[in-house]
């Protein structure tokens, strides 16, 4: 039990003292998760919109597959990405293994279904009256789409926050694809796993608190956006 208290004190020490290995892990985490979030939002939002707004064949099936992908185990994503970017894999020449870019690729696979599935259900649940009103007011197709998107902006924000939470906390991908290399691909979560493995539970808790601080900062700025 005592390591919980020790961990809390250590977390404050780490943040104040500017401990290099902690900050390099913080920076690795932010870089990888930012990259994967950008790509998954840029691809997932349009896909989610199409899936929610239009009707087409196999739509139900695609939704079901997508919902299943929400349960994708991170270690499996890591192994799949590893199979492709290992030197002997089809994309081995790109040299992505043991890099933050490699981690970001895996995290994108993780985040894409989250963004797409949530966006699709939000768009599906838009009040049908809104569309009718817009048409009766003489709005063009482009205007209808843009207005719909604007109406659900907070829902989309929720999709992004959820996906970010999943990306920020995964260990499997970072461990397998990144290799937990000190000062290079050691992220917050792999650092926590390592400290725990070493039996240094207080250090693990301290890093966990630092990670929560990052998440809190991000969500705080987002809630600021929402208020305005």
């Amino acid at each position, binding site marked *: 039990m005592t390591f919980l208290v020790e961990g809390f004190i250590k977390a404050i020490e780490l943040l104040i003292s500017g401990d290099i290995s902690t900050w390099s892990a913080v920076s690795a985490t932010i870089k990888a998760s930012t990259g994967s979030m*950008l790509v998954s939002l840029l691809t997932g939002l349009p896909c989610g919109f199409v899936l929610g707004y239009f009707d087409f064949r196999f739509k139900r099936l695609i939704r079901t597959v997508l919902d299943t992908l929400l349960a994708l185990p991170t270690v499996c994503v890591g192994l799949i990405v590893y199979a492709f970017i290992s030197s002997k894999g089809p994309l081995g020449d790109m040299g992505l293994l043991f890099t933050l870019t490699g981690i970001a690729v895996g995290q994108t696979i993780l985040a894409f279904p989250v963004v797409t599935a949530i966006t699709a259900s939000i768009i599906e649940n838009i009040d049908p009256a809104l569309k009718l009103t817009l048409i009766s007011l003489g709005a063009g197709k482009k205007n209808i789409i843009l207005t719909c998107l604007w109406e659900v902006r907070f829902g989309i924000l929720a999709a992004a926050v959820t996906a970010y939470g999943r990306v920020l906390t995964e260990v499997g991908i970072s461990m397998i694809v990144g290799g937990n290399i000190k000062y290079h691909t050691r992220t917050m979560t792999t650092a926590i796993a390592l400290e725990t*493995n070493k039996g240094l539970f207080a250090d693990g808790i301290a890093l966990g608190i630092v990670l929560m601080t990052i998440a809190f900062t991000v969500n705080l700025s987002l809630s600021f956006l929402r208020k305005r």
Partner: protein
Amino acid sequence: MRLKKILTLVITSIMILSWAVTVQASEKNELMMATTTSTDNTGLLDYLIPFFKQETGIALKWTATGTGKALELGRNCDVDVLLVHAPPAEKAYIANGFGKDRREIMYNDFVIIGPKSDPAGLKGKDISQALSAIKTNKAFFMSRGDDSGTNKKEKLLWKNAGITLPDKEKWYVQTGQGMLATINVTQEKNGYTMTDRGTYIKYQDQQRGDAPLTILVEGDDILLNQYSVLTLNPKNCPDAKYDLALKFSDWMASDSAQSKIGEFRLLGKPLFIPNAN
């Protein structure tokens, strides 16, 4: 509204900037190594590798896993060099054309540790008798269960004692974790485990000299734990940095590195004993 726009702009530009920094070309003078948890968890590499950089200008990065996965990473050419501790597996690796040169660098030994009260009465027994005693008493025994060098050795010891691996027995607990984590599980379960001496000293150090687990069996020749540097066979991995890997291998065997390995101590005890020739 204006404030929001500015904030959005700031957040977006921070995101893009921090991403741009990530995309960096890999250095030419850089070596990637796969190694075992014991060399990393004990802090040996953190202490040793800066000297390597200083003396040769080569930057070494490493990923620490079990020996099984390390060998697999080398087979897939994802690393340039290996520092592992499973001699029979290493020799088979070279025979199969995956590895090229094997150089013995240092050793420590495996020990059986357990609670001071020693409920199964291991103290004073040799290794085979000790394992039999664990089996007879159904005392908890923690196994790494991860095909690491330590795990390979442990399986060999069961075999030598004439006991089929107690894979499904309730008292045989396979943690699937690193050595220090496994020692911690052993402490929680008040059981026995086999560890390399280096990691045990590290554990003692963490317990601030008051460790509940103590060494009960040690000193058998079969308990020797040999660490070697393995270079990869250029025929299997033409892109691996073979020349740099050889330089690393040479450096680890050099007088300078060997004496530094010998000087690496915790609680005044050496964790690894250099033995390159």
